[in-house]
């Protein structure tokens, strides 16, 4: 195991940020940590890296205790922080070189490492430019280059695609896959379930400082195999029908977004549901069924949507 976390507890005064969290990540995985904002994902990462002290539990990275071998372990880890952490006054090349040196690289290794990292993120041609002149996506890519310059065994990416255009997002997701193919284990933290579903081989769903489910995308979907999702679009929003739908025994969950309702049911039969619409005289413009997503898994397990405030 490249990461072994057992019974980790972290409190901020009265708030329990990590509630006896236990986690194991195998070498070579792209491991997704999925959960809403404030679930404890970043706290877990900061604690694992020794950036934040924890109250109890045990953390082993690369087979060694973080408490006893902090500096040694950090040589083999690259952190891509949630916010862009670059020096605006230094050029792209100087930023990557600085981090390369501090990771212990020197001479030809440093020179090659910097070149490869910048080429990997597609910024080699811009190496003499300062990040202040970069777009949001380019800054995110440079943020990654600074973390991979020393070819770490473990790369931790904390929400690396926040606030960027779809093209840059795809570039970063493809980069994650490539880095994994090149031999790095990746911890990918996100509250975007599409991203986690697209690139992660193993996923842990985090909520309120606990891991509430863990497995592959299919394994997690099986947790709610007996559930079905029906999406019904009405001609106009109708809150009375929503309340009545919630009272039907077959319905587990109803969420509404304007005139579109997302209904989780225990049965593939929709008769009861459609009859209610007819009885209430509500005009339906579209009916569709979907397969459960990670969003549905999270919704079922926590009763809340992933992008709601925790």
């Amino acid at each position, binding site marked *: 195991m490249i990461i072994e976390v057992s019974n980790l507890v972290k409190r901020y005064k009265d708030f329990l940020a990590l509630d006896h969290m236990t986690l194991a990540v195998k070498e070579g995985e792209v491991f997704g940590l999925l959960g809403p904002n404030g679930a404890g994902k970043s706290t877990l990462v900061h604690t694992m890296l*020794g950036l934040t002290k924890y109250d109890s539990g045990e953390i082993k990275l690369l087979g060694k205790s973080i408490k006893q071998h902090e500096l040694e372990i*950090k040589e083999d880890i690259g952190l891509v922080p949630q916010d862009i952490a670059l*020096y605006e006054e230094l050029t792209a090349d100087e930023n990557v070189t600085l981090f390369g040196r*501090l990771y212990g690289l020197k001479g030809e290794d440093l020179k090659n490492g910097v070149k490869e990292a910048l080429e990997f993120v597609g910024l080699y041609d811009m190496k003499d430019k300062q990040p202040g002149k970069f777009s949001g996506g380019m800054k995110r890519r440079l943020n990654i280059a*600074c973390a991979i310059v020393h070819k770490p065994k473990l790369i931790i990416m904390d929400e690396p695609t926040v606030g960027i255009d779809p093209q840059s997002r795809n570039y970063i997701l493809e980069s994650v896959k490539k880095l994994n193919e090149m031999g790095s284990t990746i911890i990918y933290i996100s509250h975007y379930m599409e991203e986690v579903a697209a690139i992660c081989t193993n996923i842990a769903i985090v909520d309120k400082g606990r891991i509430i489910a863990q497995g592959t995308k299919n394994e997690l979907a099986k947790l709610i195999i007996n559930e079905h999702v029906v999406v019904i679009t009405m001609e106009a929003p109708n809150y009375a029908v929503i309340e009545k739908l919630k009272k039907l025994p077959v319905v587990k969950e109803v969420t509404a977004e304007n005139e579109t309702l997302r209904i989780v049911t225990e049965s593939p039969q929709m008769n009861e549901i459609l009859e209610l619409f007819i009885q209430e005289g509500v005009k339906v413009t579209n009916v569709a069924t979907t397969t459960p997503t990670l969003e549905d898994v999270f919704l079922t397990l926590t009763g809340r949507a992933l992008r709601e405030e925790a």
Partner: protein
Amino acid sequence: MKNILTVAHYELLRIIRDRKSFILLLAFPLLLTLILGTALGKVGAGQDRTTEKLHIKAAIIDKDRGPMAKQLVSFFESKELKKIVKIRAFSSEDKARKALREEEIGAVVIITKGFSQDVQTNQKHSLEIIDNHAFDGTVVHEIVNSYVSGVNSYQAARTISAKFAPSYPESMIDNHTLSIQGKKPTSMDYYAITMMIMILMYSTVFGRETVRQEIYSTIGMRMKSLPIKPFDHFIGKAVAGVVTVFLQIAVLLIVFRYVYHVNLGSHLPFILGVSFLFAFTMILIAMALSLILNPDAADHILDLAIPVVTFIAGGFFRIPFFETNPIMMKIQMLLPNVLTQKMIFQKIYGGQTDIQTNFIFLIGILIFAFILVLVGLRRYQHGHLSK
């Protein structure tokens, strides 16, 4: 060490690339010195040294009444020295001492009984000088030293002439001259140093920003994930700050000397060295405050403290009370800006300030600040910093 140098190297690059701030760092003290030097010229820093009319007031109490004592009095009343010192007559020592306390005069020279006899018989004899620990006192000391030196030369010459003719003329003491050129700072001289000291105190900004950036910002979080010790990182940043301040001082001193024609004596390496030490102390103090409290609290404290301690040091205008009051003198020994300022003035203009003692006190403050930084970093490593 490698990590310290790496951090210092890139931090220095960052500071220099931030041209607007870097130019401001230099322009601000130059402008401030020019304004204060010209606008506040008559507040008390001094007059133009080219006039050579100082009007220092002193008293001589002659308890000896012998020929050598009369000669010392006439030395003070000589044509050259009349431009510098005005001797006031007092009927008793107590009255002279009272006038000194009330700052009517700058020094009292007491010629103790037996002075003439001891000099004539080639015996040692001490004169008593009580002064105000300010420039006036220093000048009176210098004059007495000059007289004593002349007497000693005369005695030596007389001893030699007794053995080897021809003899030396008796009038040689009266011909002894005393130069005061460069011995008293003009307003510009004074403010150049005091403003430089104040600007050096603002080097605390490097200490505060280091803590703010490295602990409370995203880049700090990233830095903490690297395989380097926080100590290496912070010291690297402090070194970059000190080097920047050093460059700033060097440019300032060049402009002071060649554009403002400020008297810096022939002690540039000393001034640079002491300033370097002082800047390092200030950066460490700011780091310690920022680590132990937080950078915002440090901002409030230092932004208030810097003008106050500059005032206490007489940076805006000289306050004789602070220079003579025993309690204020003790407080001043704990203020690194006063210590540095005194050392620089002493080196350029001479006087009675004990450079060694001030230097030891400054080093003591630096070591104390360094220990506080270590304590703060330990708290940081254990996650006990206040936000």
